[in-house]
């Protein structure tokens, strides 16, 4: 085995030799998409053109889209092997967040619907 072949990619822990994965372009694309989503949210909230009960759903969809833009373009969560752990942790975080918010709204709405107001 000759020493000239470097098939191993061994590194000392703590060695910093990575290439910046982000670029000015990716941040600018992210900013553009985020501004679009924000303006769309403000338009949807104030317009009379849309069916009123659908507006909260539209706002929610736009918010989730914008959060996705922030995660990919600003926080650089991608499909690279370096972000696998981060994406898994995020998935668990999202699960807990949805359980917390959804569960609270569900339970309290149920209680409000079933409450018996006692005559004073």
């Amino acid at each position, binding site marked *: *085995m000759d*020493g*000239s072949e*470097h*098939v*191993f*990619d*061994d*590194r000392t*822990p*703590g*060695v*910093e*030799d*990575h290439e*910046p994965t*982000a*670029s*000015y372009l990716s*941040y*600018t694309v*992210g*900013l553009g998409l*985020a*501004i679009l989503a*924000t303006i769309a*949210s*403000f338009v*949807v*909230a*104030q317009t009379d053109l849309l069916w*009123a009960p659908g*507006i*909260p759903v539209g*706002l*929610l969809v*736009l*918010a989730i889209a914008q*959060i996705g833009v*922030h*995660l990919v373009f*600003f*926080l650089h969560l991608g499909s690279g*092997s*370096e972000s*696998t*752990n*981060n994406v898994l*942790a*995020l998935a*668990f*975080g999202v699960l*807990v*967040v949805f359980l*917390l*918010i959804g*569960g*609270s*709204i569900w339970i*309290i709405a149920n209680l409000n619907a079933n409450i018996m107001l006692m005559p004073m």
Partner: protein
Amino acid sequence: MSVATIDADPAAVPSTPARGRGGGGPAPKRTVVAYGFWIFILSDMIMFAALFAAYAVLAGSTAGGPRGVQLFNLQSVFIETMCLLLSSYSCGLGALSAERRQPGQFLLFAALTFVLGAAFLFIEVTEFAGMVARGAGPDRSAFLSSFFTLVGTHGVHVTGGLVWLVYLVAQVMVKGLRASVLRRLLCWSLFWHALDIVWVGVLTLVYLMGVA
């Protein structure tokens, strides 16, 4: 330090690094630090989720007091949103120029980030003061208590982020853009971007749905 002397069949070892899956040796410290801070950010998100849940449940409990439609001024909320979004953008560019070892550009972007974040805070504090002056303080109704708790907690986070930024700029000026300072900058930029994500939720759930 040569690793090529290890007696192993090269064909059996993957030649590309597979970070996070056990292959390719230990992950760089930068990746590990970012992962740890990411866990903290997620725990912070869960705290915000509890506040969001409280707000969503109490938003209708106005106790005869003012509702969101009468209180919120969407124009100033739009300016607030743009301030925070642009400060997130300039924070990203600042982190990028720090990684490329361009201290002058980094300081410029850091100053821009600070000014935009401070402008956001100024508008928010003005809005809060106006609401309290009109008798719509946190003591008026459960809706307003949860509103001030949720939006105020986000504001406290932004304040903390600004203090942290000043501290990091001082570190860059004294110590230079060395690896340990770059890792701290990375954590701070994760924190700042995460605050923008929380603001997207506040904007949608509190302001836009409150007015729509």
